[in-house]
């Protein structure tokens, strides 16, 4: 995308029929750190990569609880995301107060999309620079939506947004047909695997990622660090076994993980102490 004379404000069309400001806002989403979401019939898992600016600082909050049955993961301008989360929380609580019933996530998403659309048609506003993965339960089951700065929204079985999200999307595309009947724990494992794809070589540990779950009979909550680390440790052993058979670029990741576990060998794990012998 090049700088041109039609991109100064959002109310100017380009001759090709594009609104450049809106497209630039979508670029902002692509620059943010990754967020992924996937769902089964009864549960939805959201995950994101948390990059702190330096070792001294805390990381930015990217997953927000909106209500007991709705949560959101954001990518892009996190300040815009915070403001939209506050709007969503407000809508949910007002609906709950009036009707004593949870706001159906499908309706919240439409309201959010309409709010985003307003910012694409006012000369004194700018589009929100944040993409939202909204996970929620409805009368009709578990839903995952993606809300764009453009004011569009789509429903997904699984999706990833932010930087290096393509790697996660590729992983999810391979596996998504099984998600509908996955158990809750398998879904969380798949989420962690997808997050690992976006790290591309870096070690996956619970300090750099956040995972949240919502499901039938399980209110939205963010999993605590120990639980996440346990799950990472639990499937890493399995992940190693699958490494050579599955994705070729996983071998490198497998090596790092192994080193992190403190094992002596730095091969593909066949002669490791403390690791089960490979079956393949």
């Amino acid at each position, binding site marked *: 995308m090049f700088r041109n004379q039609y991109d100064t404000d959002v109310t100017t069309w380009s001759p090709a029929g594009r609104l450049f400001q809106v497209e630039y806002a979508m670029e902002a989403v692509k620059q943010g750190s990754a967020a992924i979401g996937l769902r089964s019939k009864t549960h939805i898992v959201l995950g994101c990569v948390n990059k702190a600016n330096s070792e001294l600082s805390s990381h930015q909050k990217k997953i927000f609880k909106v209500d007991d049955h709705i949560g959101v993961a954001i990518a892009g301008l996190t300040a815009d995301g915070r403001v939209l989360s506050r709007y969503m929380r407000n809508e949910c609580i007002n609906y709950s107060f009036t*009707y*004593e*019933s949870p706001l*159906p996530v*499908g*309706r919240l998403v439409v309201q959010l999309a309409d709010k985003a659309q307003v910012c694409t048609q006012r000369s004194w506003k700018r589009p929100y620079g944040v993409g939202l993965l909204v996970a929620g339960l*409805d*009368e009709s089951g578990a839903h995952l939506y993606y809300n764009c700065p453009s004011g569009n929204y789509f429903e997904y079985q699984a999706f990833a947004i932010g930087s290096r999200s393509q790697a996660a999307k590729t992983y999810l595309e391979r596996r998504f047909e099984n998600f509908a009947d996955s158990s809750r724990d398998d879904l969380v494992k798949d989420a962690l695997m997808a997050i690992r794809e976006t790290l591309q070589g870096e070690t996956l540990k619970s300090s750099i990622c956040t995972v949240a779950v919502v499901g039938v009979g399980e209110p939205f909550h963010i999993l605590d660090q120990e639980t996440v680390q346990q799950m990472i440790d639990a499937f890493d052993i399995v992940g190693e076994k699958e490494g050579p058979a599955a994705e070729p670029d996983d071998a490198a990741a497998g090596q790092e993980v192994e080193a992190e576990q403190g094992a002596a060998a730095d091969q593909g794990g066949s002669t490791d102490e403390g690791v089960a012998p490979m079956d393949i």
Partner: protein
Amino acid sequence: MNFMASTQPENRLLGPQSDSQRTLYPYVTGTSVVALKYKDGILMAADMGGSYGSTLRYKSVERMKPIGKHSLLGASGEISDFQEILRYLDELILYDNMWDDGNSLGPKEVHNYLTRVMYNRRNKFNPLWNSLVLGGVKNGQKYLGMVNMIGVNFEDNHVATGFGNHLARPILRQEWHENLSFEDGVRLLEKCMRVLLYRDRSAVNKLQIAKITEEGVTISQPYSLKTYWEFSAFKNPTQGAVGSW
């Protein structure tokens, strides 16, 4: 604040509104509504009378109406306020349908919406002068609730308004049980309505019974209850009465 000679001292707190904008007393009123949960849903009964003070003026007033797909609303009190409530609910259901998604407002949601409306009006000293009974079934769950003009609301297995609270509920407390059949439910409601017909001066002998189940709402055609006036106590009511002079 105006410093006119206080012709209407009560208006100071209301600002520019005058008393003619607020409901002070009801004009055309309906009497009791009685409802109970039975095996397949809710049964509700109300007579068709609209009283104008002590005159039984209107005798074909439908005081029960279906709301959306899942609810049934019965009202006692001011009939014009009931019609206003029906307009509010019509708009509510319209917007709900316009979403055109898989979700719809069930009886619990409608009941809570009405509670908010009634309580809000009460706080503005401009109440909707009604006692409402809201019943319905959604996804197999039966719901029966009541809300009145001051915003008091609750849910129960059987409810009644007005005189029904005094005359019908004791009967229901004795004889209601879970999983009543349709016939037993109707018989129980007719028993309550008969007592109300004998003892409530604003009752008329023309009633409707409404049923709501998962399949939908049915409101019966109007009919009358058989009454018996040949009790000897009715013939000579003061025989045996102790007088002071």
